[in-house]
């Protein structure tokens, strides 16, 4: 019985991984040249920023919150670093840590408002989103190109991999974030407290867990992740623009949900999030290989998947609860 329960907990994670394998297998069978390590690695290269921000989002969803400001924060980080590098000519080694601090401060501010003054996460981060996008336009309404040598190098440097393939620095950053996320979620007091808050906040308070501190920390962590994603994104785009990453927050939330983390909190898998992003990458790649389908089919396909996953979750949960009530 105990083993069966464990299965239930992980079932959506298994389905996510299976689905990704299925999509990749289908692509390999349908199109020549799809089945290669480089195609797989390209999915990581093109979605590195999404992986980073989605991992931060996973923690926010685990505590039952939401943060819709991440897309705007990514745009702000791109814009700010482009401005500091190209207009003010400040060294990249000062800009990079400064950007991370900006992201953390932003996340902390939102977390503080949410926790201290009991603002709805949706509304507070909505304000954060307006603020970040607005600040982008205050800096400049035009695109600022980044021509800093360090950024150029980070953008073009290819790390060789076996079988004549390569990855970018961004992938290394994304995978490091993934490992750090896994460690935080599974092996630290902070991670356990986050799960407890999502399960039942009042119980967590009564258990004497540091709820307020952890909640603010989770939003700070998410701010850090979106700043890091912004840095990765600026390596990828080499420019700052106010409309970078529009709708990215929804992509991030969709990846996390497809990865088996429901928005109700208490449950969540960092690994699942990686596969949630990869599934989106696989769909994009499939549509690219197909060639005739227009880009908007990506959105429709992702939304359909999202729908299937959410309904599946609901069925699993109601079945489990049904079992409980019988037992």
């Amino acid at each position, binding site marked *: 019985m105990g083993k069966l329960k464990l299965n239930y907990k992980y079932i959506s994670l298994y389905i996510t991984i299976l689905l990704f394998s299925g999509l990749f297998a289908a692509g390999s069978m349908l199109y020549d040249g799809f089945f290669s390590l480089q195609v797989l690695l390209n999915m990581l290269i093109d979605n590195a920023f999404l992986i980073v921000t989605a991992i931060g989002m996973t923690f926010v969803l685990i505590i039952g919150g939401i943060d819709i400001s991440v897309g705007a924060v990514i745009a702000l980080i791109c814009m700010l670093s482009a401005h500091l590098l190209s207009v003010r000519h400040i060294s990249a080694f000062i800009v990079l840590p400064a950007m991370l601090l900006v992201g953390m401060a932003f996340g902390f501010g939102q977390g503080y*408002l949410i926790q201290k*003054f009991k603002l709805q996460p*949706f*509304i507070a981060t909505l304000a954060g989103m307006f603020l970040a996008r607005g600040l982008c*336009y205050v800096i400049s309404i035009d695109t600022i190109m980044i021509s800093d040598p360090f950024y150029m190098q980070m953008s073009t440097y290819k790390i060789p991999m076996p079988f004549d393939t390569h990855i970018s620095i961004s992938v290394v950053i994304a995978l490091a974030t993934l490992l750090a996320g896994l460690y935080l979620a599974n092996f630290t007091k902070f991670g356990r407290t986050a799960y407890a808050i999502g399960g039942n906040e009042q119980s967590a308070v009564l258990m004497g867990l540091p709820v307020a501190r952890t909640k603010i920390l989770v939003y700070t962590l998410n701010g850090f992740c979106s700043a890091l994603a912004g840095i990765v994104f600026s390596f990828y785009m080499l420019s700052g623009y106010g409309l970078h990453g529009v709708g990215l927050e*929804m992509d991030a939330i969709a990846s996390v949900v497809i990865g088996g983390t*429901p*928005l109700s909190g208490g449950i969540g898998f960092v690994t699942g999030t990686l596969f949630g992003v990869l599934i989106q990458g696989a769909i994009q790649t499939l549509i690219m290989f197909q060639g005739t389908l227009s880009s908007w089919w990506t959105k*429709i396909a992702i*939304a359909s998947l999202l729908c299937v996953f959410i309904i599946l979750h609901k069925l699993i949960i109601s079945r489990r609860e049904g079992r409980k009530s019988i037992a």
Partner: protein
Amino acid sequence: MSIKEGWERFSKSQLFWPILALAIVLLFNLIFTKDFFSIEIKEGHLYGVAIDILNRAAPLMILATGMTLVIATGGGGVDVSVGSVIAISGAVAAALIGGSLQYVDGVQQFVTNVSMPVAILAALAVATLLGAWNGFLVAKIGIQPIVATLILLVAGRGLAQLVTQGQIITIYYKPFSYIGTGFLLGLPFTIFIVAALFGLTYYMVRKTAMGLFIESIGINASASRFSGINVSKYVFMVYAFCGFCAGVAGLIICSNVSSADGNNAGLFMELDAILAVALGGNSTSGGRFTLVGSLIGALVIQSITTSIYALGVPPEITLVVKALVVIAICLMQSEEFRKTLQRKGSTNRGNQCGKIEAKL
């Protein structure tokens, strides 16, 4: 004494904070913006900044009406898909009407693909259907509202582009633009649409038991079910109605610019709509709601935008100001923040109030 009692009752009412917010924004304009309240008559139409605000706030007011009811049903009730529904509704109308200027027997005539009333009805039907889909997921399957409507938010833009084939469709049929730009009795036609829709909704929720049912569902859904209210039926209806409202707003926006843009029509409108409801003094966790408050919330948002333009401040700053105002107003409405203020206020009340004023 009676004035004091009245004031006390008013200051405790749900409408106190939204009206105060609107008053502050208007007062600010009265002092700093020239000719803000002047209204003149040109060619039999009323013109003026105030009329302009009413006209431009129309889509938002309509959205906020539907959104108020959705948020009032509680349990995290929210519809984040309205922006996408706006795009779809506009796309359907534009694709059906299309239209071109043709010469029939030597006379210029506007020709449509499908007659305009049919196209409008079709667009509204599609929007209501999409709302009903949200309602089905929330009320029948029992999915969290924000998740359920997220599906349509992601898919909606894709669907809208599917309808328009990725193009921006221009509508050449002139009578269609009357909806968004026409005048009736000297006032913009959109104001009448808002009045009609709002009046109908107000009648439905305040003169029938429906409003009470929605509030009771928002406060405690299980208790409402046990007392015999068909919870899933009302929740379903509210979401379908919200879709309908988004459809109407979509038609106004589409008609205003005589074109349908699947990518950008109604972009971020869902956020503005939720904001309007929150600014209107409605609790975002459901229960008691005020439709009038939401309308005032929508007007506050539009007034801020218009006054930024009127002041000649670069429009890029609009978003920053909006964000600061949102934070300030949300803090004013937060019990915890007021308690903190009161604790500190006993020593330096004037100083704190000054800070809020400065933020606004």
